[in-house]
């Protein structure tokens, strides 16, 4: 795994180590995200999927290793370079993490306010466009987050993450807590938006259906590192016990069956 990151790699993590006290979460972890792909990160509870995401976006300073995003080494970059980088990625948190004192439209406008000289009317219109693109009705624009359902908050969180047309999108459990219909609709939404916007996606999930429907490649977190990466097909041939149990369990078979039917 010590191949030098080529120019088509937008995120490259090498030798990452994260520990809370004596509890080591990641040790010598390597992972790559290629341009334009959707990478699904899976792993059992407590294997540090979210910690990995938080490390990459700089919310959790790692103990050791290097994280290179869009050619910038995050751990050595100065403040201005980091700030410039932060406008080139978008993060969607699990429950949307919308600002509760702002309406939906104002929430989506927050990242747009950083654009110098952007006409306020255009800013409003762009926010409304983003809200419409994630499939929310126009009436939702003037609602507050507490007046929305969980699924709508997730969509709104996605709209805010996409506000500046980022090159990389981080999604933390996008379908957790949604009903199967809502989850499938969200999967389609991610797939379509990423296709038309050309975003690379780092997707943390537990949802096998999402893995089948959305992801180009899958990275499996186990034993404190990324154990294997590859397509869903390749995952089926891995004979590590946890990976095997995950991708050959009854739920995995059900998800695969549905996928085959749709594909046929």
């Amino acid at each position, binding site marked *: 795994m010590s191949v030098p990151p080529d120019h088509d790699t937008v995120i490259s993590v090498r030798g990452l180590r994260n520990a809370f006290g004596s509890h080591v979460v990641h040790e010598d972890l390597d992972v790559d995200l290629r341009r334009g792909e959707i990478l699904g990160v899976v792993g059992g509870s407590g294997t540090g999927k979210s910690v990995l995401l938080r490390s990459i976006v700089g919310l959790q300073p790692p103990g050791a290793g290097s994280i290179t995003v869009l050619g910038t080494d995050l751990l050595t970059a100065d403040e201005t370079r980091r700030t410039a980088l932060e406008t080139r990625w978008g993060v969607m948190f699990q429950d949307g993490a919308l600002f509760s004192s702002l309406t939906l439209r104002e929430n989506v406008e927050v990242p*747009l306010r950083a654009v110098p000289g952007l006409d306020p009317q*255009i800013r409003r219109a762009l926010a409304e466009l983003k809200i419409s693109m994630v499939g929310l009705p126009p009436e939702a624009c003037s609602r507050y987050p507490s007046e929305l359902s969980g699924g709508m908050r997730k969509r709104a969180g996605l709209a805010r993450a996409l506000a500046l047309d980022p090159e990389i999108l981080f999604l933390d459990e996008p379908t957790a807590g949604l009903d199967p219909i809502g989850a499938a609709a969200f999967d389609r939404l991610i797939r379509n938006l990423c296709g038309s916007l050309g975003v690379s996606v780092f997707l943390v999930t537990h949802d096998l259906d999402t893995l089948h429907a959305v992801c180009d490649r899958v990275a499996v977190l186990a034993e404190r590192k990324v154990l294997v990466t590859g397509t869903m097909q390749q995952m089926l041939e891995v004979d590590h016990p946890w990976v095997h149990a995950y991708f050959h369990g009854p739920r995995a078979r059900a998800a695969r069956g549905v996928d085959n039917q749709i594909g046929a």
Partner: protein
Amino acid sequence: MEQRDDMQVEITRTETGDTARIGGAITVHAVTRLRAELSRLPPDRPLTIDLAGLTRLDTAGAWALAMLRDRRGALAIRNAPPQAEALLRTVTEALPKPVAATPRSRRLSDQVERLGRAVAEAVGFVLALSGYLGLFIARLGRSLRRPSQFRFTALVHHCEEVGVRAVPIVALMAFLIGVVLAFQGATQLRQFGAEVFVVDLIAISVLRELGILLTSIIVAGRTASAFTAAIGSMKMREEIDAMRTLGLDPAMVLFVPRILALLLMLPILGLIADVMGLVGGALMAWIDLGISPAMFRTRLVEAADAGQVLVGLVKAPVFALIIGIVGCHAGMQVESSAESLGRMTSNAVVTAIFAVIVADALFSIFFARIGL
């Protein structure tokens, strides 16, 4: 870095129509300028947009082009790279339909309606509070009939929380009030050579009014908020619903021990406040006016009797009920969001303090009428 606006717009005008060659990146940084440049072209002439030199198109740029196509009929977009074409399609499909905003009505009848609603809400609030009072009394009666249902451990716990832990702050507050009264009273009474009446001043005001009123205000701040926060966070996490499904009565389990603890502890706290207020006053009178503690005591017995103390302390149970019921009621109004917990907590404190002061005013009028 794609932070800058590096878009070039080149406009050629011919007899058959206008052509705009747009090169570079049409992004959110360039969109304001793009709109300005293209709005100068007359809208009735056919316009062709040539995107051959395009390096990057983002949603904002695609939105500007889509809006342009929306507004003028004759618009052709040429030489768009396939990805830009796809983005344009996506954005065009997603363009929100403009919705007419309903203006907020400012007519007189609406103002009257709002006033009426506010009054009805206030009446409803008072009714709800009296409903909680009834609920508390009913559950207290039930626990007298069936003592096994009563939560004695919880009562002791809340007595400690509400009473014992409040002693330091209440004692200090009352002591300082006594000091301030003695000092201010002395300055005024000295002008008439009536310094010794400072004892009457302190005795009457602390025992009848200030001791219990200020204690209640402090307890309202400490305890009403604690009740609301505790019950409200249980409400938020559906613990109260869980209790109901398990056959537990939230009023019995949560309200009775809390309000009863307040009922028992507030008179005691009031008594502590009375004593500390007198101590503070006596100390200041001694330092400032040279009234010795023995003299203070003699004068105190002449000025005030046990009746004065009773007039003060008889208010304590009423204040305790007000604080406890307001706190529990506000806690039950918490919805599923953290904001509503914060809002109801501060509401509870404000309401409890206000209600305590109103009740105190009513007591003053009542005692004056019956000549106590």
